[in-house]
Protein backbone atom coordinates (compact mmCIF):
# COMPACT_ATOMS: atom_id res chain seq x y z
CA UNK A 1 0.00 0.00 0.00
CA UNK A 2 1.11 3.56 -0.64
CA UNK A 3 1.44 6.10 2.16
CA UNK A 4 -1.79 7.74 0.99
CA UNK A 5 -3.65 4.43 1.09
CA UNK A 6 -2.33 3.64 4.55
CA UNK A 7 -3.35 7.05 5.79
CA UNK A 8 -6.80 6.93 4.21
CA UNK A 9 -7.40 3.56 5.85
CA UNK A 10 -6.25 4.99 9.18
CA UNK A 11 -8.40 8.10 8.90
CA UNK A 12 -11.51 6.08 8.06
CA UNK A 13 -10.78 3.75 10.97
CA UNK A 14 -10.38 6.80 13.23
CA UNK A 15 -13.75 8.11 12.09
CA UNK A 16 -15.50 4.83 12.81
CA UNK A 17 -13.68 4.23 16.10
CA UNK A 18 -14.70 7.68 17.37
CA UNK A 19 -18.26 6.36 17.71
CA UNK A 20 -17.37 3.51 20.08
CA UNK A 21 -18.50 3.64 23.69
CA UNK A 22 -16.36 2.62 26.65
CA UNK A 23 -17.58 -0.97 26.83
CA UNK A 24 -17.05 -1.56 23.11
CA UNK A 25 -13.57 -0.10 23.36
CA UNK A 26 -12.72 -2.14 26.45
CA UNK A 27 -13.88 -5.36 24.77
CA UNK A 28 -11.42 -4.75 21.93
CA UNK A 29 -8.55 -4.00 24.30
CA UNK A 30 -9.29 -7.14 26.31
CA UNK A 31 -9.38 -9.31 23.20
CA UNK A 32 -6.07 -7.89 21.99
CA UNK A 33 -4.43 -8.39 25.38
CA UNK A 34 -5.57 -12.01 25.55
CA UNK A 35 -4.39 -12.83 22.03
CA UNK A 36 -1.03 -11.14 22.64
CA UNK A 37 -0.56 -12.81 26.00
CA UNK A 38 -1.21 -16.23 24.47
CA UNK A 39 1.61 -15.62 21.96
CA UNK A 40 4.10 -14.03 24.38
CA UNK A 41 6.63 -16.88 24.19
CA UNK A 42 6.55 -17.39 20.44
CA UNK A 43 6.86 -13.65 19.82
CA UNK A 44 9.75 -13.37 22.29
CA UNK A 45 11.62 -16.15 20.51
CA UNK A 46 10.92 -14.53 17.14
CA UNK A 47 12.26 -11.18 18.37
CA UNK A 48 15.40 -12.78 19.78
CA UNK A 49 16.07 -14.83 16.66
CA UNK A 50 15.44 -12.02 14.21
CA UNK A 51 17.43 -9.32 16.01
CA UNK A 52 20.08 -11.44 17.71
CA UNK A 53 19.65 -9.16 20.71
CA UNK A 54 18.97 -10.08 24.32
CA UNK A 55 17.56 -13.27 25.78
CA UNK A 56 14.25 -14.77 24.71
CA UNK A 57 13.34 -15.63 28.29
CA UNK A 58 13.63 -11.97 29.31
CA UNK A 59 11.74 -10.90 26.21
CA UNK A 60 8.88 -13.11 27.44
CA UNK A 61 8.84 -11.04 30.62
CA UNK A 62 8.84 -7.85 28.54
CA UNK A 63 5.87 -9.20 26.58
CA UNK A 64 4.09 -10.00 29.85
CA UNK A 65 4.68 -6.44 31.01
CA UNK A 66 3.50 -5.01 27.71
CA UNK A 67 0.36 -7.13 27.58
CA UNK A 68 -0.91 -8.36 30.95
CA UNK A 69 0.52 -5.72 33.26
CA UNK A 70 -0.29 -2.83 30.95
CA UNK A 71 -3.78 -4.23 30.39
CA UNK A 72 -4.44 -4.53 34.12
CA UNK A 73 -3.29 -0.94 34.57
CA UNK A 74 -5.48 0.58 31.86
CA UNK A 75 -8.52 -1.70 31.75
CA UNK A 76 -10.61 0.32 34.21
CA UNK A 77 -9.45 3.74 33.06
CA UNK A 78 -12.11 5.97 31.51
CA UNK A 79 -11.02 6.99 28.03
CA UNK A 80 -14.39 7.60 26.37
CA UNK A 81 -16.92 10.37 26.97
CA UNK A 82 -17.11 11.96 30.42
CA UNK A 83 -14.02 10.96 32.36
CA UNK A 84 -14.36 13.45 35.20
CA UNK A 85 -17.20 15.59 36.58
CA UNK A 86 -16.23 17.99 39.37
CA UNK A 87 -19.36 19.58 40.82
CA UNK A 88 -17.34 21.99 42.97
CA UNK A 89 -15.38 23.57 40.14
CA UNK A 90 -18.04 23.00 37.50
CA UNK A 91 -15.47 21.40 35.20
CA UNK A 92 -16.53 18.35 33.22
CA UNK A 93 -13.80 16.56 31.29
CA UNK A 94 -14.62 14.70 28.11
CA UNK A 95 -12.19 12.32 26.39
CA UNK A 96 -11.93 12.30 22.64
CA UNK A 97 -9.56 10.25 20.51
CA UNK A 98 -6.60 11.94 18.83
CA UNK A 99 -6.63 10.14 15.49
CA UNK A 100 -4.03 8.04 13.67
CA UNK A 101 -0.87 7.35 15.67
CA UNK A 102 2.48 6.41 14.16
CA UNK A 103 4.39 4.05 16.45
CA UNK A 104 8.13 3.88 15.93
CA UNK A 105 9.44 0.61 17.33
CA UNK A 106 13.05 0.08 18.49
CA UNK A 107 15.13 -3.02 17.75
CA UNK A 108 15.87 -3.61 21.42
CA UNK A 109 12.28 -4.26 22.51
CA UNK A 110 10.39 -4.93 19.27
CA UNK A 111 7.46 -7.18 20.14
CA UNK A 112 6.87 -5.75 23.60
CA UNK A 113 6.86 -2.14 22.41
CA UNK A 114 4.52 -3.07 19.55
CA UNK A 115 2.10 -4.76 21.97
CA UNK A 116 2.31 -1.88 24.40
CA UNK A 117 1.66 0.85 21.86
CA UNK A 118 -1.21 -1.06 20.25
CA UNK A 119 -2.94 -1.57 23.59
CA UNK A 120 -2.69 2.04 24.72
CA UNK A 121 -3.68 3.40 21.30
CA UNK A 122 -6.74 1.17 21.06
CA UNK A 123 -7.75 1.99 24.64
CA UNK A 124 -7.86 5.64 23.58
CA UNK A 125 -9.80 4.77 20.35
CA UNK A 126 -6.93 5.68 18.05
CA UNK A 127 -5.88 3.67 15.01
CA UNK A 128 -2.18 2.86 15.00
CA UNK A 129 0.45 2.32 12.33
CA UNK A 130 3.44 0.25 13.40
CA UNK A 131 6.78 1.34 11.93
CA UNK A 132 9.32 -1.26 13.08
CA UNK A 133 13.08 -1.16 13.12
CA UNK A 134 14.44 -2.54 9.86
CA UNK A 135 16.07 -5.30 11.89
CA UNK A 136 12.79 -6.40 13.50
CA UNK A 137 10.22 -6.23 10.71
CA UNK A 138 9.06 -9.84 10.86
CA UNK A 139 8.48 -10.12 14.59
CA UNK A 140 6.77 -6.73 14.72
CA UNK A 141 4.54 -7.60 11.74
CA UNK A 142 3.58 -10.88 13.36
CA UNK A 143 2.78 -9.13 16.63
CA UNK A 144 0.68 -6.49 14.90
CA UNK A 145 -1.19 -9.09 12.87
CA UNK A 146 -2.07 -11.14 15.95
CA UNK A 147 -3.41 -8.02 17.62
CA UNK A 148 -5.29 -6.92 14.51
CA UNK A 149 -7.04 -10.25 14.05
CA UNK A 150 -8.13 -10.22 17.69
CA UNK A 151 -9.28 -6.61 17.46
CA UNK A 152 -11.36 -7.26 14.34
CA UNK A 153 -12.97 -10.30 15.93
CA UNK A 154 -13.97 -8.08 18.87
CA UNK A 155 -15.63 -5.58 16.53
CA UNK A 156 -12.82 -3.08 15.95
CA UNK A 157 -12.84 -0.95 12.79
CA UNK A 158 -11.08 -2.24 9.73
CA UNK A 159 -7.64 -0.65 9.48
CA UNK A 160 -7.38 0.17 13.19
CA UNK A 161 -3.95 -1.53 13.25
CA UNK A 162 -1.61 -1.34 10.28
CA UNK A 163 2.07 -2.17 9.99
CA UNK A 164 4.88 -1.57 7.53
CA UNK A 165 6.49 -4.69 6.11
CA UNK A 166 9.26 -2.75 4.42
CA UNK A 167 10.75 0.27 6.09
CA UNK A 168 12.59 3.10 4.40
CA UNK A 169 13.69 6.43 5.77
CA UNK A 170 11.62 8.24 3.13
CA UNK A 171 8.48 6.27 3.97
CA UNK A 172 8.88 6.93 7.68
CA UNK A 173 9.44 10.62 7.04
CA UNK A 174 6.36 10.79 4.79
CA UNK A 175 4.21 9.15 7.44
CA UNK A 176 5.59 11.39 10.17
CA UNK A 177 4.75 14.55 8.27
CA UNK A 178 1.44 13.42 6.78
CA UNK A 179 -1.21 16.05 7.52
CA UNK A 180 -3.66 13.42 8.78
CA UNK A 181 -1.22 11.92 11.28
CA UNK A 182 -2.34 12.95 14.75
CA UNK A 183 0.64 11.88 16.86
CA UNK A 184 3.98 10.10 16.71
CA UNK A 185 5.01 7.78 19.53
CA UNK A 186 8.73 7.82 18.89
CA UNK A 187 10.83 5.28 20.72
CA UNK A 188 14.31 5.03 19.25
CA UNK A 189 17.64 6.75 18.96
CA UNK A 190 18.15 10.51 19.27
CA UNK A 191 18.22 11.05 15.48
CA UNK A 192 14.89 9.36 14.96
CA UNK A 193 13.27 11.15 17.88
CA UNK A 194 14.54 14.47 16.54
CA UNK A 195 13.06 13.63 13.12
CA UNK A 196 9.71 12.99 14.78
CA UNK A 197 9.82 16.32 16.59
CA UNK A 198 10.84 18.11 13.42
CA UNK A 199 8.07 16.63 11.31
CA UNK A 200 5.40 19.15 12.27
CA UNK A 201 3.23 16.42 13.80
CA UNK A 202 2.86 16.34 17.58
CA UNK A 203 5.18 13.72 19.03
CA UNK A 204 5.84 11.97 22.29
CA UNK A 205 9.47 10.95 22.15
CA UNK A 206 11.91 9.48 24.57
CA UNK A 207 15.40 10.56 25.41
CA UNK A 208 18.53 8.50 25.87
CA UNK A 209 19.37 7.16 29.30
CA UNK A 210 22.59 7.14 31.28
CA UNK A 211 21.44 5.84 34.60
CA UNK A 212 23.71 6.24 37.63
CA UNK A 213 23.12 3.88 40.54
CA UNK A 214 24.47 5.08 43.86
CA UNK A 215 25.19 2.48 46.53
CA UNK A 216 25.16 4.80 49.50
CA UNK A 217 26.93 3.78 52.73
CA UNK A 218 23.74 2.81 54.58
CA UNK A 219 22.60 0.39 51.84
CA UNK A 220 22.31 -3.35 52.28
CA UNK A 221 25.27 -4.22 50.09
CA UNK A 222 24.49 -7.82 49.21
CA UNK A 223 20.91 -6.87 48.30
CA UNK A 224 22.01 -3.85 46.24
CA UNK A 225 24.51 -5.87 44.21
CA UNK A 226 21.96 -8.65 43.66
CA UNK A 227 19.40 -6.15 42.39
CA UNK A 228 21.85 -4.35 40.10
CA UNK A 229 22.87 -7.67 38.56
CA UNK A 230 19.23 -8.67 38.10
CA UNK A 231 18.61 -5.37 36.31
CA UNK A 232 21.77 -4.94 34.27
CA UNK A 233 21.81 -8.53 32.98
CA UNK A 234 18.08 -8.50 32.12
CA UNK A 235 17.79 -9.07 28.36
CA UNK A 236 21.56 -8.49 28.23
CA UNK A 237 21.19 -4.88 29.31
CA UNK A 238 18.91 -3.62 26.53
CA UNK A 239 16.53 -1.65 28.73
CA UNK A 240 17.26 2.06 28.42
CA UNK A 241 16.56 2.42 32.14
CA UNK A 242 19.28 -0.08 33.06
CA UNK A 243 22.13 1.05 35.26
CA UNK A 244 25.11 2.43 33.34
CA UNK A 245 27.46 3.18 36.21
CA UNK A 246 27.63 2.20 39.85
CA UNK A 247 28.91 4.76 42.36
CA UNK A 248 30.25 3.47 45.65
CA UNK A 249 31.55 5.20 48.76
CA UNK A 250 35.12 4.19 49.64
CA UNK A 251 34.07 3.04 53.10
CA UNK A 252 32.08 0.17 51.62
CA UNK A 253 33.96 -0.30 48.33
CA UNK A 254 35.89 -3.43 49.30
CA UNK A 255 32.72 -5.14 50.43
CA UNK A 256 30.82 -4.04 47.29
CA UNK A 257 33.51 -5.33 44.94
CA UNK A 258 33.72 -8.61 46.81
CA UNK A 259 29.96 -8.97 46.55
CA UNK A 260 30.03 -8.24 42.80
CA UNK A 261 32.66 -10.95 42.35
CA UNK A 262 30.71 -13.42 44.46
CA UNK A 263 27.54 -12.82 42.47
CA UNK A 264 29.06 -13.29 39.00
CA UNK A 265 30.60 -9.98 37.94
CA UNK A 266 34.15 -9.55 36.69
CA UNK A 267 35.89 -6.39 37.83
CA UNK A 268 38.22 -5.37 35.02
CA UNK A 269 41.78 -4.14 35.37
CA UNK A 270 42.85 -0.94 33.53
CA UNK A 271 44.09 -2.84 30.47
CA UNK A 272 40.84 -4.81 30.21
CA UNK A 273 38.81 -1.63 30.62
CA UNK A 274 40.73 -0.10 27.71
CA UNK A 275 40.15 -3.17 25.53
CA UNK A 276 36.46 -3.13 26.36
CA UNK A 277 36.20 0.58 25.62
CA UNK A 278 37.66 0.06 22.14
CA UNK A 279 34.95 -2.41 21.12
CA UNK A 280 32.01 -0.95 23.07
CA UNK A 281 32.05 2.66 21.91
CA UNK A 282 32.64 4.17 18.48
CA UNK A 283 35.57 6.60 18.95
CA UNK A 284 34.33 8.85 16.15
CA UNK A 285 30.75 9.35 17.37
CA UNK A 286 31.11 8.49 21.04
CA UNK A 287 28.03 6.30 20.66
CA UNK A 288 27.73 2.66 21.65
CA UNK A 289 28.71 0.07 19.05
CA UNK A 290 25.45 -1.49 17.78
CA UNK A 291 27.21 -4.83 17.33
CA UNK A 292 27.51 -5.34 21.07
CA UNK A 293 24.04 -4.12 22.05
CA UNK A 294 22.19 -6.84 23.93
CA UNK A 295 24.94 -9.40 23.42
CA UNK A 296 26.06 -11.92 26.06
CA UNK A 297 29.06 -11.17 28.27
CA UNK A 298 31.06 -14.07 26.81
CA UNK A 299 30.74 -12.73 23.27
CA UNK A 300 31.63 -9.17 24.28
CA UNK A 301 34.60 -10.41 26.31
CA UNK A 302 35.80 -12.48 23.38
CA UNK A 303 35.56 -9.47 21.05
CA UNK A 304 37.55 -7.43 23.55
CA UNK A 305 40.11 -10.15 24.18
CA UNK A 306 39.23 -10.45 27.85
CA UNK A 307 39.29 -13.85 29.53
CA UNK A 308 36.13 -14.58 31.54
CA UNK A 309 34.88 -17.64 33.40
CA UNK A 310 31.66 -19.29 32.25
CA UNK A 311 29.59 -18.02 35.15
CA UNK A 312 30.41 -14.34 34.60
CA UNK A 313 27.26 -12.27 33.98
CA UNK A 314 28.49 -8.69 34.05
CA UNK A 315 31.65 -6.74 33.22
CA UNK A 316 32.42 -3.99 35.72
CA UNK A 317 34.74 -1.29 34.36
CA UNK A 318 36.38 1.01 36.94
CA UNK A 319 36.52 4.58 35.57
CA UNK A 320 38.29 7.72 36.72
CA UNK A 321 36.04 10.33 35.21
CA UNK A 322 32.95 11.25 33.23
CA UNK A 323 32.72 12.59 29.68
CA UNK A 324 34.25 12.09 26.25
CA UNK A 325 37.64 11.10 27.66
CA UNK A 326 35.93 8.17 29.34
CA UNK A 327 33.71 6.60 26.65
CA UNK A 328 32.26 3.98 28.99
CA UNK A 329 30.76 6.77 31.08
CA UNK A 330 28.01 7.08 28.46
CA UNK A 331 25.09 4.76 27.68
CA UNK A 332 25.97 1.22 26.55
CA UNK A 333 23.01 -1.16 26.31
CA UNK A 334 24.92 -4.33 27.12
CA UNK A 335 25.98 -6.25 30.27
CA UNK A 336 28.70 -3.68 30.98
CA UNK A 337 28.69 -1.19 33.83
CA UNK A 338 31.03 1.62 34.81
CA UNK A 339 32.34 1.73 38.39
CA UNK A 340 33.34 4.76 40.48
CA UNK A 341 34.76 4.85 43.98
CA UNK A 342 34.10 8.14 45.77
CA UNK A 343 35.27 9.62 49.05
CA UNK A 344 31.86 10.25 50.58
CA UNK A 345 28.18 10.90 49.91
CA UNK A 346 28.63 14.45 48.56
CA UNK A 347 31.38 13.34 46.23
CA UNK A 348 29.25 10.42 45.04
CA UNK A 349 26.33 12.72 44.39
CA UNK A 350 28.54 14.96 42.27
CA UNK A 351 29.59 11.95 40.17
CA UNK A 352 25.93 10.94 39.76
CA UNK A 353 25.04 14.46 38.60
CA UNK A 354 27.86 14.39 36.04
CA UNK A 355 26.71 11.00 34.75
CA UNK A 356 23.08 12.10 34.68
CA UNK A 357 24.01 15.10 32.54
CA UNK A 358 26.34 13.04 30.34
CA UNK A 359 23.64 12.01 27.87
CA UNK A 360 20.91 10.84 30.25
CA UNK A 361 19.14 14.01 31.32
CA UNK A 362 15.54 13.44 32.32
CA UNK A 363 15.59 9.66 32.06
CA UNK A 364 16.14 7.64 35.23
CA UNK A 365 18.37 7.43 38.27
CA UNK A 366 18.75 4.87 41.03
CA UNK A 367 19.88 4.76 44.64
CA UNK A 368 20.34 2.02 47.21
CA UNK A 369 20.13 3.52 50.67
CA UNK A 370 18.40 3.18 54.01
CA UNK A 371 18.82 6.84 54.85
CA UNK A 372 15.65 8.73 53.95
CA UNK A 373 17.31 12.13 54.12
CA UNK A 374 20.00 11.07 51.68
CA UNK A 375 17.47 9.47 49.33
CA UNK A 376 15.57 12.76 49.20
CA UNK A 377 18.74 14.84 48.85
CA UNK A 378 19.93 12.60 46.00
CA UNK A 379 16.54 12.82 44.27
CA UNK A 380 16.41 16.61 44.52
CA UNK A 381 19.72 16.81 42.65
CA UNK A 382 18.91 14.41 39.84
CA UNK A 383 17.23 15.44 36.61
CA UNK A 384 15.30 12.22 36.02
CA UNK A 385 11.67 11.41 35.31
CA UNK A 386 11.90 8.49 37.68
CA UNK A 387 14.28 7.92 40.58
CA UNK A 388 14.00 4.36 41.77
CA UNK A 389 14.95 3.44 45.31
CA UNK A 390 16.29 0.05 46.42
CA UNK A 391 15.04 -1.37 43.13
CA UNK A 392 16.55 -2.84 39.97
CA UNK A 393 16.20 0.14 37.66
CA UNK A 394 15.41 -1.78 34.42
CA UNK A 395 12.36 -3.35 35.98
CA UNK A 396 11.66 -0.43 38.33
CA UNK A 397 11.56 2.41 35.84
CA UNK A 398 9.11 0.67 33.53
CA UNK A 399 6.65 0.59 36.41
CA UNK A 400 4.15 -1.72 38.08
CA UNK A 401 6.59 -4.52 38.93
CA UNK A 402 8.50 -2.98 41.84
CA UNK A 403 6.50 0.20 42.40
CA UNK A 404 3.27 1.94 41.41
CA UNK A 405 4.57 3.88 38.42
CA UNK A 406 2.43 3.32 35.33
CA UNK A 407 3.71 0.34 33.34
CA UNK A 408 5.21 1.68 30.14
CA UNK A 409 7.76 1.03 27.43
CA UNK A 410 7.89 4.72 26.56
CA UNK A 411 9.56 6.65 29.36
CA UNK A 412 9.25 10.41 29.03
CA UNK A 413 12.42 12.35 29.82
CA UNK A 414 11.06 15.88 30.17
CA UNK A 415 12.47 18.90 28.46
CA UNK A 416 16.02 17.87 29.40
CA UNK A 417 15.58 14.86 27.15
CA UNK A 418 13.74 17.04 24.61
CA UNK A 419 10.42 15.46 25.58
CA UNK A 420 7.11 17.03 26.54
CA UNK A 421 6.61 14.88 29.64
CA UNK A 422 8.55 13.06 32.35
CA UNK A 423 5.69 10.57 32.75
CA UNK A 424 5.67 6.90 31.99
CA UNK A 425 3.56 7.29 28.84
CA UNK A 426 0.29 5.39 28.74
CA UNK A 427 -3.29 5.52 27.39
CA UNK A 428 -4.15 8.77 29.18
CA UNK A 429 -1.54 10.59 27.09
CA UNK A 430 -3.32 9.54 23.89
CA UNK A 431 -6.65 11.30 24.41
CA UNK A 432 -7.66 14.87 23.87
CA UNK A 433 -9.46 16.17 26.93
CA UNK A 434 -12.24 18.68 26.35
CA UNK A 435 -13.44 20.72 29.33
CA UNK A 436 -16.93 22.01 29.87
CA UNK A 437 -16.55 25.04 32.11
CA UNK A 438 -19.74 25.83 34.05
CA UNK A 439 -20.23 29.34 35.33
CA UNK A 440 -18.50 29.65 38.71
CA UNK A 441 -17.70 33.35 39.12
CA UNK A 442 -14.41 34.29 40.78
CA UNK A 443 -15.70 35.75 44.04
CA UNK A 444 -12.82 38.16 44.55
CA UNK A 445 -13.01 39.51 41.05
CA UNK A 446 -16.78 39.99 41.40
CA UNK A 447 -16.53 41.66 44.82
CA UNK A 448 -13.76 44.18 44.14
CA UNK A 449 -14.46 47.69 42.95
CA UNK A 450 -12.98 47.39 39.44
CA UNK A 451 -11.88 51.02 39.42
CA UNK A 452 -9.10 50.03 41.84
CA UNK A 453 -7.43 48.14 39.02
CA UNK A 454 -7.02 51.40 37.13
CA UNK A 455 -5.42 53.20 40.07
CA UNK A 456 -1.62 52.97 39.83
CA UNK A 457 -1.30 53.60 43.60
CA UNK A 458 -3.08 50.33 44.36
CA UNK A 459 -0.94 47.21 44.68
CA UNK A 460 -1.83 43.54 45.15
CA UNK A 461 -1.74 43.79 48.96
CA UNK A 462 -4.28 46.61 48.98
CA UNK A 463 -6.59 44.64 46.69
CA UNK A 464 -6.32 41.63 49.02
CA UNK A 465 -7.04 43.76 52.10
CA UNK A 466 -10.10 45.28 50.43
CA UNK A 467 -11.35 41.83 49.58
CA UNK A 468 -10.83 40.56 53.13
CA UNK A 469 -12.27 43.69 54.81
CA UNK A 470 -15.39 42.92 56.79
CA UNK A 471 -18.07 45.52 56.02
Amino acid at each position, binding site marked *: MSIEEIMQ*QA*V*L*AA*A*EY*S*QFDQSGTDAIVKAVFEAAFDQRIRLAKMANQETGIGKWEDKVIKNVLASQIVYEDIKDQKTVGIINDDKETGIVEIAQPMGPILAIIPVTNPTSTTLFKILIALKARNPIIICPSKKAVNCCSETAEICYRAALAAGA*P*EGCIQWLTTVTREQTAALMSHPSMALILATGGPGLVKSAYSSGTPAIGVGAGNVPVFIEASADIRFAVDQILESKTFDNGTVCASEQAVIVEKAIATEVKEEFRKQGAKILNPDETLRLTRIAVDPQTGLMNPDIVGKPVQLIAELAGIAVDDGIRLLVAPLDGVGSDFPLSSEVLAPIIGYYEVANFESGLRTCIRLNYNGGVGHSASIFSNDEEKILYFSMHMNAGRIVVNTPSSQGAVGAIYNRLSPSLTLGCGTGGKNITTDNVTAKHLINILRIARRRPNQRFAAIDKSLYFNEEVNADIIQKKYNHNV
Partner: protein
Amino acid sequence: MNEYHIDNQKLTCVFYGRLDTLGSQAVDAELSAKLDASVQEVVFDLKEVAYISSSFLKICLKTVHNTGSNHFSIVHVSPGVLKVFQIANLNHLIRINE
Protein backbone atom coordinates in the same frame (compact mmCIF):
# COMPACT_ATOMS: atom_id res chain seq x y z
CA MET B 1 -34.58 -2.47 5.38
CA ASN B 2 -32.96 0.25 3.30
CA GLU B 3 -35.11 1.97 0.71
CA TYR B 4 -34.13 3.00 -2.80
CA HIS B 5 -36.24 5.38 -4.91
CA ILE B 6 -35.49 6.39 -8.46
CA ASP B 7 -37.18 9.52 -9.63
CA ASN B 8 -36.22 11.37 -12.78
CA GLN B 9 -32.71 9.82 -12.98
CA LYS B 10 -32.11 10.61 -9.31
CA LEU B 11 -31.48 7.69 -6.96
CA THR B 12 -32.35 8.41 -3.33
CA CYS B 13 -31.12 5.85 -0.84
CA VAL B 14 -32.67 5.91 2.62
CA PHE B 15 -30.64 3.97 5.15
CA TYR B 16 -31.64 2.75 8.60
CA GLY B 17 -29.90 1.81 11.85
CA ARG B 18 -26.24 0.94 12.24
CA LEU B 19 -24.25 0.89 9.05
CA ASP B 20 -21.54 -1.33 10.49
CA THR B 21 -19.24 -3.51 8.39
CA LEU B 22 -21.88 -6.16 7.82
CA GLY B 23 -24.64 -3.64 7.11
CA SER B 24 -22.34 -1.82 4.70
CA GLN B 25 -21.70 -4.99 2.74
CA ALA B 26 -25.45 -5.24 2.17
CA VAL B 27 -25.60 -1.58 1.15
CA ASP B 28 -22.75 -2.08 -1.28
CA ALA B 29 -24.50 -5.00 -2.96
CA GLU B 30 -27.89 -3.25 -3.08
CA LEU B 31 -26.38 -0.05 -4.41
CA SER B 32 -24.45 -1.83 -7.14
CA ALA B 33 -27.69 -3.37 -8.33
CA LYS B 34 -29.46 0.00 -8.44
CA LEU B 35 -26.72 2.07 -10.04
CA ASP B 36 -26.83 1.94 -13.78
CA ALA B 37 -26.13 4.30 -16.62
CA SER B 38 -29.54 5.92 -16.31
CA VAL B 39 -28.80 7.25 -12.82
CA GLN B 40 -27.43 10.80 -13.01
CA GLU B 41 -27.59 11.80 -9.37
CA VAL B 42 -27.32 9.94 -6.07
CA VAL B 43 -28.52 11.04 -2.64
CA PHE B 44 -27.85 9.19 0.62
CA ASP B 45 -30.47 9.99 3.27
CA LEU B 46 -29.00 9.26 6.72
CA LYS B 47 -31.89 10.55 8.84
CA GLU B 48 -32.34 7.18 10.53
CA VAL B 49 -28.66 6.33 10.80
CA ALA B 50 -26.85 6.52 14.13
CA TYR B 51 -23.56 4.77 13.33
CA ILE B 52 -21.41 4.47 10.22
CA SER B 53 -18.43 2.21 9.68
CA SER B 54 -15.29 2.80 7.68
CA SER B 55 -16.79 0.40 5.12
CA PHE B 56 -19.73 2.75 4.62
CA LEU B 57 -17.35 5.68 4.30
CA LYS B 58 -15.58 3.77 1.55
CA ILE B 59 -18.94 3.31 -0.20
CA CYS B 60 -19.42 7.08 -0.03
CA LEU B 61 -15.94 7.58 -1.53
CA LYS B 62 -16.64 5.06 -4.28
CA THR B 63 -19.97 6.69 -5.06
CA VAL B 64 -18.57 10.19 -5.28
CA HIS B 65 -15.78 8.85 -7.46
CA ASN B 66 -18.30 7.23 -9.84
CA THR B 67 -20.85 10.02 -9.99
CA GLY B 68 -18.68 13.10 -9.54
CA SER B 69 -18.99 15.47 -6.61
CA ASN B 70 -21.70 17.57 -8.23
CA HIS B 71 -23.98 14.57 -8.57
CA PHE B 72 -23.71 13.04 -5.13
CA SER B 73 -24.86 14.34 -1.79
CA ILE B 74 -25.66 13.16 1.69
CA VAL B 75 -28.64 14.59 3.54
CA HIS B 76 -30.20 14.54 6.99
CA VAL B 77 -27.07 13.74 8.95
CA SER B 78 -27.20 13.78 12.75
CA PRO B 79 -24.53 15.85 14.54
CA GLY B 80 -22.77 12.63 15.52
CA VAL B 81 -22.64 11.34 11.96
CA LEU B 82 -21.58 14.74 10.66
CA LYS B 83 -18.62 14.64 13.04
CA VAL B 84 -17.63 11.23 11.71
CA PHE B 85 -17.48 12.67 8.18
CA GLN B 86 -15.40 15.56 9.50
CA ILE B 87 -12.94 13.22 11.23
CA ALA B 88 -12.70 11.18 8.02
CA ASN B 89 -11.93 14.41 6.20
CA LEU B 90 -14.66 13.67 3.64
CA ASN B 91 -16.46 16.96 4.09
CA HIS B 92 -14.19 18.42 1.39
CA LEU B 93 -15.12 15.74 -1.12
CA ILE B 94 -18.78 15.18 -0.46
CA ARG B 95 -21.67 17.62 -0.21
CA ILE B 96 -23.29 17.05 3.16
CA ASN B 97 -26.57 18.82 3.76
CA GLU B 98 -28.65 18.97 6.89
